[in-house]
């Protein structure tokens, strides 16, 4: 079955530390992949997306993600976390159906 898995429900990091949020997908063919961020009471904002080509994708707010076909992964990274990065992060996949399939999300807490 098609699925997007985010293994970490909640991650806590110190401000200034590096961050990696995990995402694995299970699809017959490589889907388009996305990372969205959701702040409390807000809608979803796109951080970055992968369609094809270069496997390291740069996004907004200093985020990047690396696509690894062999591991069916699309992990999100940031070298130095800011307190304003505290939010819920969602990985999503899109196939030919043109709708998004989301993981369950990872809640990021940033401590001073």
């Amino acid at each position, binding site marked *: 079955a098609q699925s997007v898995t985010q293994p970490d429900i909640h991650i806590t990091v110190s401000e200034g530390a590096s961050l990696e949020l995990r995402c694995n997908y299970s699809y017959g063919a490589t889907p*388009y992949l996305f990372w969205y961020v959701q702040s409390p009471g*807000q*809608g*979803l904002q796109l951080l970055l997306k992968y369609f094809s080509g270069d496997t390291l994708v740069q996004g907004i707010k200093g985020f990047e993600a690396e696509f690894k076909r062999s591991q069916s992964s699309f992990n999100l990274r940031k070298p130095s976390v800011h307190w304003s990065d505290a939010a819920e992060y*969602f990985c999503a996949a*899109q196939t030919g159906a043109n*709708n998004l399939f*989301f993981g*369950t999300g990872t809640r990021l807490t940033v401590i001073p």
Partner: protein
Amino acid sequence: DAGVTQSPTHLIKTRGQQVTLRCSPKSGHDTVSWYQQALGQGPQFIFQYYEEEERQRGNFPDRFSGHQFPNYSSELNVNALLLGDSALYLCASSPLHWGDEQFFGPGTRLTVL
């Protein structure tokens, strides 16, 4: 550009009632998708509208229906509300091109008592 707008922001209904949620897409977008986000979960696709027709549908019962108007705005209707319908309902708009970014509205928080 106002982006995607949704109304109302919050809504409280009782079981068995019917509700209508509204969405105006981002300027230049002709495709509207609706998602349900239960507490602590990721959004789940309900359906997508293009050219005033439902083009795709997720795994939701017929109690969930929608409409798209000639100006591309859309409504989501839910009949015979259940407690389990309590969720954040998100509207997203995009051009109808596979892989194009979907822009999300702030959502409507529906509480069913």
